[in-house]
């Protein structure tokens, strides 16, 4: 039982065409339908007290999204999971939840994420050859690309934001890039920007397919930790 929970949820192909704000609205309404005693902020325009770890870009599927939520009454993770899932549409599912004993902010804790990016190239290539190209891409000390921000594009060196990168053959057609990159409120590296840089620097003619987030981490003292582990840090 707890007044606050941290939970993990997934989003599959069916709902990947929603933008981040649509996902927020979807949760807001699902929570209202669920009848769960969600806490609201004070003030003129009360909002539900729910904070998400990372924004979900349109097109992204994920098996590891996180959010923190507060309630007016104690609630068990089991009750929360079953009641919210009943009120959520097919395609988004709460998988797990842990009590949050003190107010943390998942948003400020998340610092990295793992992605699987499916891609293809025009000619058939040996996966090892592609992986070799990816490794040599990582040998660059400076990978500067134009990053779009609120005030126009500016050059950013994304190399320090990439922790590991490797390519392999996909189960079906094409290839998969496994990427472990910086994420979060500061220094977020979007996988689509990474793919653009990879294509520009290596000359690989990449056509990017689906992007899947399979993990996100919080870091404490240079250690990557599961967000559930640091829930009460």
């Amino acid at each position, binding site marked *: 039982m707890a007044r606050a929970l941290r939970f993990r949820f997934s989003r599959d192909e*069916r*709902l990947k*065409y*929603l933008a981040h704000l649509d996902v927020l*609205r979807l949760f*807001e*309404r699902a929570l*209202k339908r669920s009848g769960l005693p969600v806490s609201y902020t004070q003030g003129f*325009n009360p909002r539900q007290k729910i904070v998400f770890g990372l924004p979900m870009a*349109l097109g992204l599927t994920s098996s590891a999204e996180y959010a923190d939520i507060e309630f007016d009454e104690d609630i068990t993770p089991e009750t929360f999971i079953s009641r919210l899932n009943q009120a959520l549409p097919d395609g988004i599912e709460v998988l797990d939840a842990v009590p949050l004993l003190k107010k943390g902010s998942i948003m400020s804790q998340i610092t990295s994420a793992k992605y699987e990016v499916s891609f293809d190239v025009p000619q058939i290539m040996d996966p090892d050859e592609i992986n070799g190209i990816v490794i040599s891409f990582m040998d660059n000390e400076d990978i500067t690309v134009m990053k779009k921000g609120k005030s126009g594009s500016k050059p950013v060196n994304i190399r320090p934001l990439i922790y590991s990168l490797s390519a392999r053959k996909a189960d079906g057609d094409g290839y998969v890039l496994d990427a472990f990159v910086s994420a979060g409120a500061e220094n977020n590296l979007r996988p689509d920007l990474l793919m653009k840089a990879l294509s520009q620097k290596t000359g690989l003619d990449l056509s990017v397919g689906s992007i899947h987030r399979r993990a996100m981490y919080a870091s404490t003292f240079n250690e990557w930790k599961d967000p559930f582990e640091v829930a009460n840090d």
Partner: protein
Amino acid sequence: MMRVKLDDTLLLQVEKPAKYIGNEWNMVKKDPESVEVRFAFAFPDDYEIGMSHLGMKILYHILNRREDTYCERVFAPWVDMERLMREKGLPLYTLETYTPISEFDIIGFTLQYEMSYTNILNMLDLGGVPVLAKDRNRSHPFVCAGGPCAVNPEPLADFIDFFVIGEGEEVIHEIIDAYKDWKGSGQDRNAFLELVAGIEGVYVPSMYEIVYYDDGTIMDIMPKSGKVPDTVRKRIVTDLDSADFPDDIIVPYIGTVHDRIMLELFRGCIRGCRFCQAGFIYRPVRERSPEKLNELARSSVEKTGYDEISLVSLSTSDYSALPEFCDNLLEFSEKERVNLSLPSLRVDNFSLGLMERASKVRKSGLTFAPEAGTQRLRDVINKGITDEDLKSSVQLAVAGGWNSVKLYFMIGLPTETMQDVEGIADLGFSLIESCRGIADKHGGRGLNITLSTSNFVPKPFTPFQWEPMDSIEVLREKQYHLKDLIRKRTRRIRYQYHDPEISHMEAVLSRGDRRLGRVIHTVWKLGARFDGWDEHFSFERWQQAFEENGLNSSFYANRRRDFSEVLPWDHIDTGVNKGFLVRECQKAYEGDLTRNCANGCSNCGASVYQAGICFRKDKNNSQGG
């Protein structure tokens, strides 16, 4: 059964792909193989517009309550999506099952706005359904249409197999039943049309012959056989409380124009503003009971998770039980953290109390609709409000903490002079002046006003149905004059106005005859779609289409009709007599006001329906009872 396959190569290339995937909360899921009738409810505009439309929600709910029928939705794909669909050879599909619309039994379009007509042709074509009704055979769906614009169905007569005039809740069942009978009978397509032509409120255009004079006006509208009626009378629901109203509405993923619960207080309007088509075609006024509304509010919030309810009607403050109802509703909405929006509150009986209570939940901008700038012209249009009413309402609003007010006007109203146009600016100036001290006293900032003018478009079944519309040039001149006046005087007033070219085409289509079918067909082939959207509308394209068909748009928009002229919609009967409309038009010229339905009956004719306000016992009515 074919299902359209959607994938990233399509959906990741278009804006807001969530418009095209369906699967929203409360979407109805059925096995298409298990029903007898598949009905595609088609909204000829973008998803974000269409999903805001209450009529679709009502009919979707009603049709899907039938076990023998599956009603699915289809919208006009935005231009980016359409381009890709055509490139890939994908047909237009419904959101429920991704089935091409050509596989349906009936496709039903709702006609909310004349400028969406070209989208109807485009949607049929994209769906693999012949655009012209005469080209369809037994393998094709029937294409029907209803909604407010269907009161003049003629411009779409070439494309639509049958029209439904009036409210659809009851007649739709009769149509579905007739379809099932026909489907089992093995008879030809025409047999079904004869069957539905016998249903009150259904109009089958191919069964009528229109004869013209040499000058292009109509000599006669004649049924081709004794099997169809001379006039088709609109259908209404007499008792709103017993009419099915949805509380399990679909909750879209993306933001739509009206993304909230809509509670329909009543249909019709007691006021009788002479320019307003809705005020005449939805007569008589019928209310839903406060008990029923409160019940609907609660169950809707529970089933949708929406945090906003909007009260829907043509004039919220005319709801007879408004104070009690709002008390009860506000109690619920505050507890459940649901916002309440109260649109269409009239200026004259705007109450400070209600305003204050509603603002506990949220204080948004306020809108008023004086419609005309001078008292003389407001009397002409039977808008029974005065400058004083308006001034005191706005002062109350400013004292209550609102500092932005939007005022809606029309330019080009019958008898309007430049003095009336200037009256719009003067009204704005005097409101700013009259509120000068008030805001300071209440610690607020000064009043900001937005003046918005739309271009008056004469509509069928109104007292102004015979009136010429102002030419595009005259409308522009009035707009520029007003803009100039305001800019020279103050920065506290913003002025917004509408494109007169789009209004001109709206006027043409709303009072058009059957010959316009050729123009609509041509302009669509020239690339017209989403004509209601500034960025897609092309006046030149429409002009070209008129030229190619030897017709003149001014004949429809800018010509004064004689009271004795046969109008293209004279075979449609909305319950309101033509004689009443003539009298109202003559009174308009004299500036004579007509009392509203709550104050007494003016014998418009709508009492033939024996419903609603015409028969309300507590009102001092000379008619009915």
